[in-house]
């Protein structure tokens, strides 16, 4: 009786809220630059998830309760992301998409230039949808964005549950499958940010769910399910390039499998044709810049794989910073690395057991075969993490492949739950394994040193003070109307949003060397003139090019206190040109202001 009450949904909701509060508290301590006990944060995450996992492993909950549990899990984990960075966007891609959304509101139309990722305005699904909420509520892009992504996330959780329940024929299995999915490395933070994939992936799962429901419907009922499928394909095509290609690939593979396996149901080739047509059509008509954006990345990834495999270049060290980031950051502790590796091992075991069961029971279903293939490819893609330029490609692919892995994992979990006499012990074992998968995924999906939030705003004597990049951005937003800047990466993101300025960074054009090098090379001023960039941000902080860490206050002895040579500032003073802003580490020059 007591055990039953402890496993009830209200108690689990209370525990989830308490876990969320612990996560919020540790983030608050970190923002306050007090020593935040990171173990409390992980404990909070487990307090959210473990009771839900344990309840999902039981045979008792109804279909609706299981749905409620996974929605609670999705909501609580989404809130973990929100308490990490409220009340501002802080993830690099969020500044980019927020800038697009603000531009839509400012100019009433789509496709306005974005200097950070020029492809993004041509996939305006997320920002267009957000603009509806912004305009109808008067909210900022932040408020509207978190509501929209939150709705998408809950839709994702429910749709994945229905998809797995229909394919596996088990609500219990479906709940466990969704629980496994929360262990993908991008689930906790990256997949919850205000970015186009955070909308397109849920829409893709809605399409897949509609597809399997359509397959299970009597012939007269199939047309109805075609409506969300077609709308979803169209919406995804203008929301996110990679998701639209993934969806087209899935339908093409399904069409081939239906033909090869002689499935006695309508072949989904019309969906394959539509998905391919709109994805390619959108690429060629509206989003040609995607070719120049995506293909070099893929090319680099392939080259890196070949070089690493042939021994020409050294493999990437796991759990370490990318070599392009200059500032030294704390590496992941050994225990955390062990948990992340253990998570992969647990997933491997579940997959091995699951694949055998799936093959025995479900191999007549084409989508199930695709999921099996995705589960195997997931582990192959893990090896990309050893290739320096390919790890991100592998990481991004994981979000899609993990759907298949989570489905196969259902059968592995079922074996754990049916394999011996003591059910409670086996439920506890599975709950622990799911906890390891969740925490391991979170560790491998986000750098260790920034799992907890850093201060960007703080209070002093009851008033608010801001970090240097944020203060400059807000000042520029108030005083300079849409000016053009050359800036280090992190400063440029803040200048986009909330600054609302056009800020170029990175290597195309080569702004990075202009703002990072202490010497003024002959090519630098002509390049700035050619790109009409009169304002130049000189930032002495070494982490100013780090889009994940550069927007925050400097905390001496901890982060942000490694500096570039003084020449990065002096080279512009010596020209001489006007110094518009000076806040110590950051100096803003105006090249059009000179003797």
């Amino acid at each position, binding site marked *: 009786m007591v055990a039953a009450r402890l496993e009830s949904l*209200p*108690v689990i909701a*209370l525990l989830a*809220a308490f876990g969320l*509060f612990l996560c*919020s508290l540790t983030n608050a301590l970190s*923002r*306050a630059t007090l020593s935040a006990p990171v173990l409390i944060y992980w404990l909070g995450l487990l307090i959210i998830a473990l009771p839900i996992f344990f309840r999902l492993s039981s045979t008792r909950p109804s279909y609706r309760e299981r749905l409620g549990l996974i929605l609670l899990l999705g909501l*609580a984990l989404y*809130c973990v992301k929100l*308490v990490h960075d409220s*009340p501002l966007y802080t993830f690099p891609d969020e500044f980019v998409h927020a800038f697009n959304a603000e531009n*839509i509101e400012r*100019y*009433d*139309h*789509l496709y306005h230039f974005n200097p950070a990722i020029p492809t993004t305005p041509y996939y305006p*699904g997320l920002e*267009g*949808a957000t*603009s*509806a*909420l912004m305009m*109808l*509520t008067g909210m900022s892009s932040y408020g509207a964005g978190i*509501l*929209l992504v939150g*709705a998408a996330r809950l*839709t994702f959780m*429910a*749709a994945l549950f*229905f998809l797995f329940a229909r394919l596996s024929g088990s609500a219990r299995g479906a709940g466990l499958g969704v629980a496994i999915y929360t262990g993908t490395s991008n689930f906790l933070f990256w997949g919850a940010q205000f970015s186009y994939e955070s*909308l397109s992936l*849920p*829409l893709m799962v*809605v399409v897949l*769910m509609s597809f399997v429901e359509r397959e299970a419907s009597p012939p007269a009922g199939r047309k*109805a*399910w075609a409506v*969300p499928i077609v709308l*979803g394909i169209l*919406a995804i095509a*203008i929301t996110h390039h990679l998701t639209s290609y993934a969806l087209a690939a899935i339908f093409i593979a399904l069409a081939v499998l239906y033909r090869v396996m002689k499935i006695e149901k309508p072949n989904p080739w019309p969906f394959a044709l539509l998905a391919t047509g709109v994805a390619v059509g959108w690429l060629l008509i509206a989003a040609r810049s995607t070719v120049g954006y995506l293909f070099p990345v893929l090319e680099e990834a392939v080259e890196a794989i070949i070089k690493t495999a042939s021994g020409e270049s050294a493999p990437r060290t796991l759990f370490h910073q990318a070599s392009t980031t200059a500032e030294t950051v704390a590496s992941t502790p050994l225990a955390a690395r062990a948990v992340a590796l253990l998570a992969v091992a647990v997933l491997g075991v579940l997959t091995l057991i699951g694949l055998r069961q799936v093959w025995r029971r479900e191999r007549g279903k084409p989508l199930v075969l695709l999921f099996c293939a995705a589960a195997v490819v997931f582990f192959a893609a893990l090896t990309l993490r050893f290739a320096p330029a390919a790890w991100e490609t592998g990481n991004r692919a994981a979000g899609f492949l993990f759907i298949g892995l989570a489905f196969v994992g259902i059968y592995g979990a079922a074996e754990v739950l049916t394999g011996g006499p003591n059910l409670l012990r086996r439920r506890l074992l599975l709950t622990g394994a799911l906890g390891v998968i969740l925490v391991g995924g979170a560790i491998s999906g986000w750098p260790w040193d920034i799992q907890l939030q850093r*201060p960007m705003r703080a209070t*002093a004597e009851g*008033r608010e*003070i*801001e970090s240097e990049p944020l*203060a400059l951005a807000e*000042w520029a937003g108030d005083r300079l109307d849409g000016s053009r800047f050359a800036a280090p990466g992190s400063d440029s993101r803040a200048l986009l949003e909330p600054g609302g300025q056009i800020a170029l960074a990175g290597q195309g054009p080569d702004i990075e060397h202009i703002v990072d090098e202490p010497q003024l090379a002959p090519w630098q*001023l002509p390049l700035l003139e050619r790109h009409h960039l009169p304002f130049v941000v000189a930032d002495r902080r070494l982490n100013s090019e780090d889009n994940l860490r550069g927007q925050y*206050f400097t*905390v001496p002895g901890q982060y942000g206190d490694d500096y570039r040579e003084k020449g990065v500032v002096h080279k512009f003073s010596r020209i001489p040109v006007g*110094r518009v*802003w*000076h*806040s110590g580490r950051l100096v803003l020059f105006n*090249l*059009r202001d*000179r003797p």
Partner: protein
Amino acid sequence: MRGHRDLEWVSVAAVACAVIAALVPLELIRLVAALPLTLFLPGYALVAAAFASRELAPPKRLTLSVGTSLMVLVLGAFVLNVFPFGLTTASWAVLLPMVVIAACRAAAIRRDRPARRRSRRSPLPRPQPGSIALVSIALLIGAGALALAQKPLPAEDAEGYAALWMLPADAEEETAVVGVINNEHDPASYRLKVRLGEDKRARTYRVELDPGEERTYEIGVARGASGRTHVVASLYREEQPTHLYRRVTSWLPRQKTFP
């Protein structure tokens, strides 16, 4: 739509929500109206039109309604962009109810007969007072967690700083605005010295600022003999009056060409 009570309600709700969201100036009320209008009603109407009289379990209908609403928002932005007026509060407030009403009309036509009152409702368990209390406490704790995350906190170890800036005040550039922002943790006193061209005498201002406070000064700039005046603003901490802390410069009126 007569007789299809759900479709009637949805159509009326869409129009009412659109009017409230477009016309009421209070953000919270607009939010309450805009959320169903954007995230539920269009999808509900389209799903009703697609499925007509066919049964669809409520959780699936709800999920599809939200999912399809998101699709409508994405495609709606694409459609509105085609028109010269583009994406505005008014265009969204017209488009979304139009989609809802059109889909409800299609659903009413496709449905066999007016929906009868269902005799068999899926029974939802009546929550017990204890459960209500627990869920209420959970909601309070969750809201507290989110509120804590919204609140900036003192960050004593974060390195404070002051910023000095200067811009022309107007298009003629005969006046400069110099601003000082104190982002230190404590109140601070500075001396601001502004020197114009060859004039050896600097204008000096004593600046006392609380944390997070900004003060600006307008300084008239007389044209020099060369037509351009070099304006230099220097900031000194009160306790270190000889040690230059910040400096900004400008040549007014500005050249507006690159070096």
